[in-house]
């Protein structure tokens, strides 16, 4: 475990260097947050009887989405890893005395964590101070908040496990952009980033519930707002753990297969 945790620490410190980039990111996220809330506000102004999620819950959902973007976006990329694969420097990685899956996993995890640390707090802080109807609200109880934290972190683990598949696919396509895009679009749609999952028609909701993507974003955010009751949240946590296990095992297997095909050409 030691080498993985030091990779994590090193990357965290590295990521924290880009403070001005983070500030720009915060500004961008605010723009998106406001825009989405305005769009949904306009939709909600045409009356429909009991919407599947209230506007207040939706505002919370959208702000959490914007502030934890680094936790839920699939297109978040590490060009270093891509370069390693496409230039052949992967050979050096193979010489390292630790498993390559765990090493990359720690690296990607740290990147997302450092990016989120810098961005999420300023966004949330300001979102709490905004005037209605844009204001972010507190979770209904402390236990809900604890459940939210657990589901958020488990969601992050799942997301990193999913994103590992993108890197593995580069071994086959040799160029990251294509697989990144396809994975990104499908993943984000079923994570509820294009349209919140409660607002989807029921047949689509069923598909979304079968896939792991929603466990990374939609699920923790709805736990926070109380839209998902605590007992359901516990069931969800078990589901998250099962998916995490399946994805990591599959990922390790796929990486092993891909590495077996790598031919190192000296030089």
């Amino acid at each position, binding site marked *: 475990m030691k080498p993985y945790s030091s990779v994590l620490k090193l990357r965290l410190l590295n990521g924290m260097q880009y403070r001005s*980039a983070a500030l*720009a*990111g915060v*500004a*961008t996220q605010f*723009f*998106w947050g*406001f*825009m989405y809330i*305005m*769009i949904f506000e*306009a*939709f*909600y*102004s*045409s009356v*429909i009887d009991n*919407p599947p999620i209230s506007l207040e819950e939706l505002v919370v959902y959208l702000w959490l989405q914007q502030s934890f973007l680094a936790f839920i976006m699939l297109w978040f990329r590490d060009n270093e890893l891509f370069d390693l694969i496409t230039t052949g420097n992967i050979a050096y990685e193979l010489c390292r005395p630790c498993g390559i899956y765990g090493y990359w996993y720690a690296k990607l995890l740290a990147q997302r964590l450092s990016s989120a640390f810098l961005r999420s707090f300023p966004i949330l802080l300001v979102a709490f101070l905004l005037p209605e109807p844009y204001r972010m609200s507190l979770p209904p109880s402390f236990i809900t908040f604890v459940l939210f934290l657990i589901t958020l972190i488990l969601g992050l683990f799942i997301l990193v496990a999913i994103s590992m598949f993108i890197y593995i696919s580069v071994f*086959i*396509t*040799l*160029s990251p*952009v*294509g*697989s990144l*895009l*396809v994975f*990104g*679009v*499908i993943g*984000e*749609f079923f994570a509820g980033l*294009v*349209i919140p999952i409660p*607002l*989807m*028609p029921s047949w*689509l909701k069923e598909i979304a519930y079968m896939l792991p993507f929603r466990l990374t974003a939609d699920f923790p955010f709805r736990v926070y707002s109380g839209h998902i009751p605590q007992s359901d949240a516990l069931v969800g946590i078990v589901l998250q753990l099962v998916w995490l296990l399946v994805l990591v095992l599959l990922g390790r297997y796929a990486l092993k297969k891909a590495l077996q095909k790598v031919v190192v050409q000296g030089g």
Partner: protein
Amino acid sequence: MGLYFRYLSILFKSQMQYRTSFWLLTVGQFLVPLSLFAGLYFLFERFGEIKGWDFYEVALCFAVIHMAFAISECFGRGFDSFSSLVQHGGFDRVLVRPRSTVVQVLGSQFEFTRFGRLLQSVLVLVWALNHLTIEWNVVKIITLCLMIISGVSIFAGIFILAATLCFWTIQGLEVVNIFTDGGREMAQYPLNIYQKWVARFFTFVIPFGTVNYLPLMYILDKSGGNELLYMATPLAGIVFILPCLLVWKFGVRHYRSTGS
């Protein structure tokens, strides 16, 4: 112009080298607006309308802005990735050649994969037009074409402005996304659904409103009177590129090489 097409054919050949990735990317580019459009569709299925606009009207709005974005991304990609050209000193090479800098930067990149995106928006356009009952006449058709041209020119203008900033900041700026991606996303819906200040900003400062919202009122006969005014608004968007080109010229004159 001849030079530009030479650039294009070379870029096309080089992009076809990674064939799997090329097709994946084209399909991906088709999927991006498709997923957004699906989102739009499902929202209308649930809510019915948005501030008096129905689904097909908004779909038309969506199609126009996405077509404009796809076209300008195809052509303007060179400006979009301009920061790396400055960082690596590649712009010095551009400067010593006896050709216009704009053509060379435009020709330095071309995303053929964006045709996937373009195709998707054309399909949406056809679908929307099929379901809308519009009394077509020549002026309306011209207005529709102008809307797309206007959009292309606004996005290209923003790309150029962003690239000009690189002369001073060296790095690309993430904030620019607010105006490209954000503007596109925002103009998917008619601007009057937003708060007044937002609608004003995107009409008078960065004229996205002239791409679809204002001329659409004319095409859909919602304008109430002032037809000529609404019809002519896309022209304002087309003019937007002129000051951007001026700023670019100014930037080129003040360029200092990074020396790498």
